[in-house]
């Protein structure tokens, strides 16, 4: 019984109707050429321009984000027509047809569209085949190219994380305080167990924003007292935290 309302919500969200629209001016032109059964190499510009402007005016089937490009094509069509109308001293030879540029474009675009339809079928077939997803092997700790992280880089990573946390709409559980000392102990304990901590991942596991902030301060404190070492494999990648060997020996 409880299922029913839930399913309704699901369907209302997942059914996004997207009408067929012409993505670009060439799309629309090709459609008109086909509809009017026009020879692509001998396009009656006046006819096609009228039809084209008609569709443009209706604004229903064109991708409105691309309106400027549709209008540009209309201008090109009118320009071609004017070229054809202008009286000339010498008749045009074949290669000089003002429509040539457009025709070349249309022919190539038509080929691409045909290739697309074949690729689309292939995509369809391919999507029903599943392979095993394998995670790339993790690099060994202590591999080359490790850079010790500056405070700024640490802070930057932290802000990345804060943004993420902010986006999550978690409930705040009141009345829970986090102490720096306990957090530090927790981090050290985690490090002793796992030997290496993934900075972003660790903070992601924190339940609340406060806890995340306290952990960040704890980490800074631990770095300051040289109990741990923070390294980054490459700039802007996640930061890994190790216990310093000396401190391990001391314990």
């Amino acid at each position, binding site marked *: 019984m409880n299922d029913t309302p839930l399913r309704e919500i699901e369907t209302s969200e997942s059914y996004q109707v997207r009408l067929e629209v012409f*993505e670009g001016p060439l799309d629309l032109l090709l459609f008109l050429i086909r509809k009017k059964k026009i020879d692509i190499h001998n396009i009656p510009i006046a006819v096609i321009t009228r039809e084209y402007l008609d569709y443009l005016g209706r604004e229903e089937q064109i991708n409105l984000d*691309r309106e400027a490009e549709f209008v540009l094509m209309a201008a090109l069509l009118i320009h071609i027509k004017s070229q054809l109308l202008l009286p000339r001293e010498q008749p045009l030879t074949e290669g000089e047809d003002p429509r040539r540029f457009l025709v070349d*474009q249309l022919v190539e675009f038509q080929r*691409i569209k045909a290739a*697309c339809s074949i*690729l689309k079928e292939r995509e369809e077939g*391919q999507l*029903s*085949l599943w*392979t095993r997803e394998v995670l790339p092997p993790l690099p060994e700790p202590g591999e080359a190219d490790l850079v010790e992280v500056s405070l700024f880089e640490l802070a930057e990573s932290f802000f990345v994380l804060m943004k993420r946390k902010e986006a999550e709409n978690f409930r705040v559980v009141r009345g829970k305080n986090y102490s720096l000392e306990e957090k530090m102990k927790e981090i050290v304990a985690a490090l002793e167990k796992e030997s290496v901590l993934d900075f972003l991942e660790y903070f992601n596991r924190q339940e609340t924003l406060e806890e995340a902030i306290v952990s960040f301060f704890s980490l800074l404190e631990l770095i300051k007292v040289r109990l741990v070492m923070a390294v980054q494999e490459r700039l802007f990648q996640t930061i890994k935290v190790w216990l310093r060997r000396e401190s391990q020996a001391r314990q």
Partner: protein
Amino acid sequence: MAPGLKEIIESLIFVSLEPLSREKIVETLSDYPAAEVEQALQDLIQSTASAERGIAIIQSGGGYVFTTRPEFDPWVRRFLKIDRKSKLSSASLETLSIVAYHQPVTLSEISALRNVDSSYTIKTLLEKKLVKITGRKKSPGNPLIYRTTERFLAYFGLNSLGELPTEEEIAKILGEDRTVEKAPKP
């Protein structure tokens, strides 16, 4: 043929992290004559294709991989909790085939061919790792050059760019369109 060769190859394909190329198989089994390895490979492909199994070996992305059979797609998706795999949008597909056929190609060349600004589309294709930047063109403005990736091949189940739809296949599609147009009206 050496006994067990077929099964050896099967095990190699199974453990390989990426599509296992023919060269790599031959190289690994260098103690067998290459022709025999080749024969065993063909036998293996054939036997997995005909066997009553949930998986088969296909050639894709320049090598051999195990995949599930297409008819079991609904159950695999249910297991992986994936409603449906998202497909490429028509704008993406268009841009992608332009890159595939015209590579190496620049953004302005792509936009000119489509008559549509394609900077956003190329960005999403870069994110999906279906195209990559391979350098800059030595022309005014030194624009970036785009090419398709290995992932592009695997995505469409192609082994090389040579397997892209050919002129003949394209002409056939265009021809079919024309016959529809010429069909007499009832």
